[in-house]
């Protein structure tokens, strides 16, 4: 494999020279290397995650007691708006498709970089400036946006939400949206055109498949949001009446456009993390993934169905075709169920090692399954009518989204941390972090299901003692503080790993896929030498030739060969 420095007119072959590569801040500003951009995305999104998590602590403190005046009602509205917006637009998505995908995907397909490195760098700068623009809202006289992360019309009109804060929110989401679109173009092109010889589509790691499908979903969903935001801005400042009844417009049009983005967005956030889970479970079970093609087609089915269910968020508007959206929403449970069964099937009969990445993944399966089942309930219009806009919905989507982005996300973080940094983390602290999050998270959100069923509406800053919501809210807030403490443990783990490093080998987990054939961290264009690719697990084949998958497919069962491999150890 040869990589050439870009030189139009007189291309030459030969290894690129990077001796004069800048250092420090200049490297951060100028790099087009997917690994540096991926790390930039990851660290930036984690900073946004910590800020958004701190906002959640303020929200839970306000709700700790009835008639509380810890923050004003206006500030409370700003807090939950920016908490949701940061978590969804600035953390969950960019952490996965900006951070992990950027770093891991080229390595997993044996590519030297992303297909469009300059566009990749531009995506990051648009993301960073977009994120900062959103936070700038807190410094304006009117305060930050306060209309929820969904920005429903007419609440988001210039009359109901005046000032620069909401405009900064609109601009911020536009910038982050373009960043996402550019990243998606890069992911799809890289997957289609830069795979190593022999790495056919049906040999790609499941993570790569999931990122490909996520990229396609982004290309479907994000342009709709950008168009909707431009129209919202026009309504606010240019005198149009697209979303206002006064001028002949339709407020519910915003909901249609927003959720045509918003529901695929949920899967844009979830699919990359499903991909991580599908990488971690086989490695820590010492088995190939069970039902590879089933997982691939389930991913495609989830992507398709998720784009056809946008109006299930709008059942109570009375303007949508209930049976159509209900039926499609219920159908999503089928491919999602297939995934959960294949993950369990992969563990079944394997030699499961309960290292911290695996613990996080098992935590994900537990939490996500609960969130998924309450999603099936909410897909039924009669139940949705009763629970719409209550804490039942808040608990549901936190179980789904926290389950994927935090449990699976930190599973992926710890799994690839040695590859990213060339260092190991402290396993004990990672396990402590897991248990604190698992306990804290469930103590926070399980009471919220009960609060929702008792009728507590979401997005209220205060409740009365007579409402009898106090005890459950207190339990929920204590759970949130435990969860918050878990991230202090994580930061301590990272600090210790930074100050007292334990070097990591190239393949500390006995991983299966190509990134584990590269150094930790990989060199500039990733690979000195690739192993032959004859199955879905080329690095396993290289390290365990007696139990190689391609031999198994010719000579017998994989299970038999795994036993052979274990005996030979």
């Amino acid at each position: 494999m040869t990589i050439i420095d870009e030189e139009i007119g007189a291309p030459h072959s030969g290894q690129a020279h990077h001796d004069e590569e800048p250092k420090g801040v200049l490297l951060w500003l100028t790099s087009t290397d997917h690994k540096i951009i991926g790390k930039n995305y990851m660290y930036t999104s984690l900073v946004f995650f910590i800020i958004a998590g701190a906002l959640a602590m303020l929200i839970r403190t306000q709700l700790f007691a009835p008639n509380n005046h810890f923050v004003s009602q206006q500030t409370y509205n700003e807090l939950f708006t920016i908490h949701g917006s940061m978590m969804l637009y600035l953390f969950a998505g960019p952490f996965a498709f900006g951070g992990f995908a950027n770093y891991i995907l080229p390595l997993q397909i044996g590519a030297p970089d992303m297909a469009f490195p300059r566009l990749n760098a531009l995506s990051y700068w648009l993301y960073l400036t977009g994120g900062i623009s959103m936070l700038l809202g807190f410094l304006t006289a009117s305060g930050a946006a306060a209309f929820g992360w969904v920005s429903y019309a007419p609440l988001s009109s210039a009359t109901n939400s005046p000032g620069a804060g909401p405009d900064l929110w609109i601009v911020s989401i536009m910038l982050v949206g373009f960043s996402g679109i550019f990243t998606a173009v890069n992911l799809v092109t890289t997957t289609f055109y830069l795979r190593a010889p022999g790495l056919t589509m049906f040999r790609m790691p499941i993570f790569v498949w999931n990122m490909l499908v996520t990229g396609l979903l982004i290309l479907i969903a994000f342009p709709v949001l950008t168009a909707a935001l431009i129209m919202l801005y026009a309504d606010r400042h240019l005198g149009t009446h697209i979303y206002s009844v006064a001028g002949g417009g339709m407020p519910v049009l915003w909901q249609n456009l927003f959720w045509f983005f918003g529901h695929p967005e949920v899967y844009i956030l979830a699919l990359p993390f499903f991909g991580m889970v599908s990488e971690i479970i086989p490695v820590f079970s010492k088995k190939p993934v069970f039902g590879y093609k089933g997982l691939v087609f389930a991913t495609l089915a989830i992507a398709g169905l998720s784009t056809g269910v946008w109006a299930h968020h709008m059942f109570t508007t009375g303007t949508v075709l209930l049976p159509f959206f209900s039926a499609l929403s219920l159908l999503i449970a089928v491919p999602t169920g297939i995934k959960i069964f294949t993950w369990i099937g992969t563990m079944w009969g394997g030699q499961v090692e309960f290292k911290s990445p695996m613990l996080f993944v098992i935590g994900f399966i537990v939490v996500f399954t609960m969130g998924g089942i309450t999603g099936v309930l909410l897909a039924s219009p009669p139940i949705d009518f009763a629970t719409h806009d209550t804490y039942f919905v808040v608990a549901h989507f936190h179980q789904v989204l926290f389950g994927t982005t935090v449990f699976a996300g930190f599973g992926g973080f710890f799994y690839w941390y040695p590859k990213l940094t060339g260092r190991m983390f402290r396993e004990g602290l990672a396990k402590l972090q897991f248990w604190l999050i698992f306990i804290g998270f469930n103590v926070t959100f399980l009471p919220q299901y009960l609060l929702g069923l008792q009728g507590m509406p979401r997005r209220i800053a205060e409740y009365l003692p007579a409402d009898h919501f106090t005890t459950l809210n207190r339990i929920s807030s204590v759970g949130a503080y435990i969860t918050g403490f878990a991230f202090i443990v994580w930061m301590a783990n990272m600090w210790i790993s930074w100050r007292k490093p334990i070097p990591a080998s190239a393949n500390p987990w006995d991983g299966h896929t190509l990134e584990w054939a590269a150094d930790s961290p990989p060199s500039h264009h990733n690979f000195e030498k690739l192993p032959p690719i004859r199955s879905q697990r080329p690095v396993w084949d290289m390290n365990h030739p007696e139990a190689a998958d391609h031999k198994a497919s010719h000579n017998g069962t994989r299970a038999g060969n795994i036993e052979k491999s274990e005996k030979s150890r």
Partner: protein
Amino acid sequence: MKSERGVYMLIGIFFFAIMVIYFLWSGEAGGSVMLFAAAGLGIMPGLYFSWWVRRMPLRPEDRPEATLAEGSGAVGAFPSNTIWPFVLGMGSALTALSLVFGAWLAVVGLSFIISTALNVTLESRRGGSI
């Protein structure tokens, strides 16, 4: 290339079918248009790939038995370090923020964008560096 075509066509055909069912059942225009656009996003590149599938031999990455040696030669042209994506990003952000803080900011932002257009072109001719 056949699998790549398959992914796009599968998406396109699925959305087209959903669009037809939804439109006939609900008669609602907005959602139908969005589903039609989503179908187009699958079918257009799918047809482009179909055109190529018939005209080019299988690539090494499409053949299960391909050897690594078959992938030798130039993989692609990758730029080294460059400041211009950063400048373009700042220019785009300032131009977008002019929607909030006034048109004067767009003058600054657009100057960044234009200078990036010029300098990236020159950089490519030079061979790519800061």
